[in-house]
């Protein structure tokens, strides 16, 4: 039993425990600061649940980004995929809730596959491919719904009540969005321990070595892009449920925020380094910071500057000497 518990909390492969400890320390420091500055309001259960609910979408997208960065790539299209999924989910509700969600997920995975194939088989830089895909996907979602946010289905019907009630609902006292996040985090953590997960680390660590070791490098790389798109479209379900509409312009901030979270969490742009746990901690550093700023009524005009400075400090503290 003890071994089982120890195994469950063991840090993912490819991690440096000291790195993670440092990131956790930064987070704890921020949380202590938040508690003191807000005179205890920060630790209020409502505030914590609020914080988690608000960041549920970003948590999912950061995990999607994490997988791509682990292969040594970068994905600027995560927000666009969330946008097109939200539009599809709302527009095709006439076919039934399940079919609409299934269709959205399918379209997203297809778009992810296009990026993956271009990056893997044509050997194009993922930054440019996903930048172009981002423009294409945003434009396609505007074509689908005529440019403005959609509240009704194609046939003029309403959005499914169950879907709208999902975000606010709870199961065993835990709010649904938090449950979804926990489920996805656990799934991905387990997934990283399978041989497939280790392949992803291997490809990011050294693509050629992985190739010569006989790993199916191309399939794995393309499948990571598909998986990432799948997770981003799950985030879209939460989005629709939360705001009650499909928005072709949503998620513009998601790529940069998710990249910041993954990097603060200790992942490296050259690939092969990083953990799920680190990504989550990195994300909480950003979200606790946002939370402090709104609790303290920091004027929104200087919030981007403070956020930028904290990203720089956190990554600086986390960056260790690497041989280039």
């Amino acid at each position, binding site marked *: 039993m003890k071994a089982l518990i120890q195994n469950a909390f063991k840090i993912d492969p490819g991690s440096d425990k000291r790195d993670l400890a440092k990131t956790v320390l930064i987070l704890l420091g921020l949380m202590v600061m938040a508690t003191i500055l807000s005179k205890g309001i920060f630790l209020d259960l409502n505030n914590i649940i609020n914080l988690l609910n608000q960041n549920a979408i970003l948590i999912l997208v950061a995990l999607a980004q994490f997988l791509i960065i682990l292969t040594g790539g970068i994905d600027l299209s995560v927000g666009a995929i969330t946008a097109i999924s939200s539009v599809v989910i709302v527009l095709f509700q006439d076919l039934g809730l399940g079919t609409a969600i299934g269709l959205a997920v399918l379209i997203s995975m297809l778009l992810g596959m296009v990026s993956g194939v271009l990056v893997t088989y044509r050997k194009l830089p993922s930054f440019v491919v996903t*930048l172009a895909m981002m423009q294409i996907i945003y434009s396609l979602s505007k074509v689908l719904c005529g440019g403005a946010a959609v509240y009704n289905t194609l046939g003029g019907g309403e959005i499914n009540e169950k879907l709208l009630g999902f975000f606010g609902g709870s199961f065993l006292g835990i709010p649904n969005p938090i449950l979804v996040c926990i489920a996805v985090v656990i799934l991905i953590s387990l997934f990283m321990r399978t041989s497939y997960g280790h392949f992803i680390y291997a490809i990011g660590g050294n693509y050629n070595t992985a190739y010569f070791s006989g790993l199916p490098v191309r399939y794995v790389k393309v499948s990571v892009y598909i998986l990432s798109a799948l997770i981003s479209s799950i985030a879209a379900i939460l989005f629709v449920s939360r705001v009650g509409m499909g928005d072709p312009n949503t998620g513009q901030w998601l790529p940069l925020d998710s990249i910041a979270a993954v990097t603060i969490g200790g992942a490296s742009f050259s*690939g092969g380094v990083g953990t799920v746990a680190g990504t989550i901690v990195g994300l909480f550093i950003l979200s606790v910071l946002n939370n402090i700023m709104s609790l303290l009524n920091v004027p929104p005009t200087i919030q*981007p500057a403070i956020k930028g*400075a904290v*990203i720089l400090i956190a990554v600086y503290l986390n960056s260790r000497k690497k041989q280039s």
Partner: protein
Amino acid sequence: MNKSLNISRTLVWLGRYSAPVALVLLFIFGAAAVPNFVSERNLTAVLFQYSVIGFLALGQLLVILTGGIDLSQGSMVALTSIVTSVVMSRYGLAAGVICGLTMTTLLGVMNGLLVSRTKMPAFIVTLGMLGIARGLAMLIANAKPVPIKEAGFAVIGKGTFLGIPISALLLAAACVIIHYFLTQRRLGRYIYAVGSSEDCTILSGVNVQNVKLLVYSLSALLTAIGGLIWSARLTSGSPIGGSGYEMESIAAVVVGGGDLFGGQGTVLGTLSGVLIFGVINSMLNLAEISPFWQGTLKGILILLAVSFSLVRRPGESKR
């Protein structure tokens, strides 16, 4: 044997000059197929709009040549416009321009110091600076646009000389200077060397840290000049403007044959990349294509350009 050599030479030539060739072909297509495309009014409008992106793309080119990236450009455009307009309203034209250029270049120097002296990736450093520059612009302007009343200042954004926009002439001058610097000066060649192989360049005794410091500072300076032209065109400073410009400048460099892994890219290619986007934008608008579809067409264009223009050096493995 001789024939195959000729073919591969042609391919290399096409790879190197694919962007200018594509620009010429696009222009001919536009002149033939799109009404009003070749009119003085349309062409000067393209030049007015895209000379700002041109300055940003020149700076981005220098950074990308070393294998880095500069995401802070869009916010820096806003910061330059705000600092310039605020200072100008109190202390006059010259002081405004000098303060705008200095402030933004200082942030660029910070980018350069952080990228070269710490182990932080350029992406994150400039992403942080994106937030900082935007926040500073909002703070100084109190989140409101600041009007510019100096009539002389608007000349660089709106004026023409012999029918050609002055901003385009400034851009042409900057292109010539940067081209000369990159191809004829030792320091310019070091920039290519750093991007091709940083380790080899260090072992050759080049001070790589200072080369990197220089490119980020120059990128900020060129961005600041772009920001001045931008605010002169609007005759106001805006703290929220310019967002997303960095993506346009990166796309222009890449379409112009620049390699995000460093070491490849030219001024001619980059300038063609900027103009390709300008020409396509104006053609789409003149042909009355729905704005919703325009993103799809531009995205496909970027993908096509990149997959054809990237000439891989032999024996090279890339991710």
